[in-house]
């Protein structure tokens, strides 16, 4: 984060505002965290309002903005999709995966508008746009020498992918939507000349006679190519990256990765995410793993190396105060960056130096406000 977030003059009266979906606990919890520190409850501009009312942003009166996730709100999703060139009404069912590219494009338009408004943001809109584009993010990490699993753009059709698979004989990759959030649409694919297996947190359904993909909290395994072709036929065209599937380190209870929240350049709150499936996202009902067991297995120096890598990854986005970085450890216990998430600070009840993640971020605002 650079210095112009808090211009040197007039530090004492900086007013913070939030942009988000007010019904979401992210907003409520963060407001509560600010209030708990003795600050005024920061107002929240709803994405619905921002999207439906052109002047809403102009009216916003604040010195600093914290942007939060537009997710988990069907009306916002519809409006973003429409703004991004999609249909006026997406007609997506609850949990249905669709219009990922349009959604992202729409969100980028919103981010751009916010940037145009000129109010400093805790996380810069331009950074957020890149963090939500897996290919652009990957490129940025490569430029800065951050350890990332080898990745490339996936082909746009299942047929081309199959030809690549055949040419390669056997292999294993992650396919991730370029513009998906969390584990949505992420597929673990492995194959040999004789069989294939796609593991993904989604259900393949028929909708008005057409195949449709529904996000699911349970992970399904598809082994028939016909099913896999249907799934990839929906996910590949809007863009995916094809990433090396590095076998993750395992602890009692399954494979793990780390979510490390980096705030102001420092790795702070972290959790071990654990699953019996290739996807370790906490959203999927996976468990928080045993930190003591991990420390005992890999030792403090390797854990520190993972934290340093998370800090290095966050440093690729110097205009952002914080970011959630997913670090995976391979069987040799070397760290790799899986993802970076601009809204990766939702880590309820997790304490570091006695404060929650939101309290730590709010504290940073508070300290900056008071430090005249």
């Amino acid at each position, binding site marked *: 984060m650079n210095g112009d977030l808090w211009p040197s003059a007039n530090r004492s009266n900086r007013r913070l505002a939030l942009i988000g979906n007010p019904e979401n606990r992210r907003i409520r919890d963060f407001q509560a965290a600010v209030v708990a520190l003795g600050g005024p409850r920061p107002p929240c501009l709803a994405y619905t309002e921002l999207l439906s009312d052109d002047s809403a942003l102009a009216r916003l009166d604040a010195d600093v903005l914290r942007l939060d996730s537009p997710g988990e709100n069907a009306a916002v999703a519809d409006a973003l999709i429409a703004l991004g060139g999609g249909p006026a009404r997406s007609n997506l069912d609850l949990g249905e995966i669709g219009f990922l590219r349009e959604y992202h494009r729409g969100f980028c338009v919103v981010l751009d508008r916010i940037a145009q408004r000129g109010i400093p943001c805790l996380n810069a809109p331009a950074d957020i746009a890149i963090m939500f584009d897996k290919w652009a993010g990957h490129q940025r990490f490569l430029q800065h020498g951050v350890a990332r699993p080898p990745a490339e753009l996936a082909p746009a059709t299942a047929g081309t992918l199959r030809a690549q698979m055949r040419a390669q*004989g*056997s*292999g*294993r990759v992650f396919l991730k939507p370029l513009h998906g959030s969390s584990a949505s649409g992420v597929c673990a694919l*492995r194959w*040999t*000349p004789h*069989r294939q*297996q796609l593991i993904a947190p989604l259900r393949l359904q028929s909708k008005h006679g057409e195949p449709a993909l529904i996000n699911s909290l349970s992970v399904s*395994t598809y082994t028939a190519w016909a099913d896999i072709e249907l799934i990839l036929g929906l996910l590949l065209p809007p863009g995916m990256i094809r990433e*090396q*599937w*590095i*076998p*993750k380190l*395992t*602890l*009692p*209870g*399954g*494979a793990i990765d780390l979510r490390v929240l980096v705030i102001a350049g420092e790795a702070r709150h972290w959790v071990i995410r654990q699953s*019996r499936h*290739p996807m370790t996202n906490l959203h999927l009902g996976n468990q928080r793993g045993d930190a003591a067991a991990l420390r005992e297995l890999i030792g403090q120096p390797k854990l520190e190396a993972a934290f340093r890598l998370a800090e290095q990854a966050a440093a690729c986005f110097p205009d952002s105060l914080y970011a959630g970085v997913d670090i995976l450890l*391979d*069987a*040799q216990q070397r760290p790799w960056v899986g993802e970076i998430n601009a809204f990766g600070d939702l880590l309820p009840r997790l304490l570091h130096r006695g404060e929650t993640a939101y309290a730590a971020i709010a504290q940073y605002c508070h300290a900056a406000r008071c430090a005249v």
Partner: protein
Amino acid sequence: MKRNLIYMDAKSSKFWNIEQSGNTFTVTYGRTGTDGQSQIKSFADEAVATKEAAKLIKEKLGKGYVNAAPSAPASAPANGAAGDATDEPIPLVAFSSINRREDIGENIGTFVGQRVVDYDADKPVKADVCYRFRSDWETNEVIPNLEAYFETDAALTATALVLGAWHGDDSEKTSAEVVATLVKGRDRLPRLAAIFMGDITSEENEMSWIKQSDLSPLLAAFPRLQLLRARGGDGLALTVPQHAHLRALALETGGMDVSVLRSVCTSDFPNLEYLELWLGTDQYGANYSVADLQPILSGRLFPKLKYLGLRNCQLADEVAAVVVNSPLLQRLETLDLSLGVLTDEGARALLLLPLNTTLKKLNLHYNYLSADLVRQLKALPLVVDASKPSDMDVNDEWRFVAVGE
């Protein structure tokens, strides 16, 4: 009064000793190979101390500890050169590996009681650990690493080896090359007593995708082998199933081909005490019927058998219905039908287990039993493990073996 107990599984190897003298007892416990720590407790009189000690011992036995004294002395190897007095029988408890469904997802931390360490060509080789050889996703140095290890003095005293993912990024690669390399290095591994061929987690490769090969060359090459454990059923074979001293055979598969079962049923393992077979589901290639288990259950084979595990079995109910009629029950200590699709139907059959035999333990971990049947089974005069992973849905219409979802 003195009792020495040990505990071993895929994660740990521990001891727990208690020695009573008058109204005082001393408990010493810790990891195997360490001195551990001691606690001394005193009581009002000797009777109270004896009672408290008995309570603690019972508690430990309930947790899976067993007497440290070897359950049976290993028979002396026929070959005089190999038969020096230092051959120690591996305790029966150390043959088991995966006890819980969740253990399946992780690499082992200990093997036959020894700490498992990944072999690293850049580090000095130690003599007091069990090395694991495996590829990672970038490089596959398993063969050169094995060959380098054979050149060290540590190999000459090694009693256990673990082979992990040997396939690198080519999941089609079978274990044949690794087997051949071990066979070639036989003279550098004169004391090898335990091999795990396939410490591979689902993160590295699905159990049903692991490509195995004929493992019987290992039996021929290592006359002092006591345990052969393998994971993965695809391509698995034991074409010459013979070994004069083998005490334990464990074959973990997602679906066992009937030809492997046939090899076990026509084997010559006169000293086998421990037989663990993961039978799996037809989805993953299992093509046996319960009738194919008859030669094992008939009791004609394996006169020394103490542990029988028919695990991860789709047909666990049918297996249970036949097992209770098996003459083997007259000599088994542990019957293990865990990780399979065992429902109340199979459990009702198990209620008919003959009592007053050598049988002490019934492992039914991961099951689809109702609370009522669990209660009835627990009333049997046996140590019964009828635990379930917390995420199991007994009422689910679809019922899966532990490896097979």
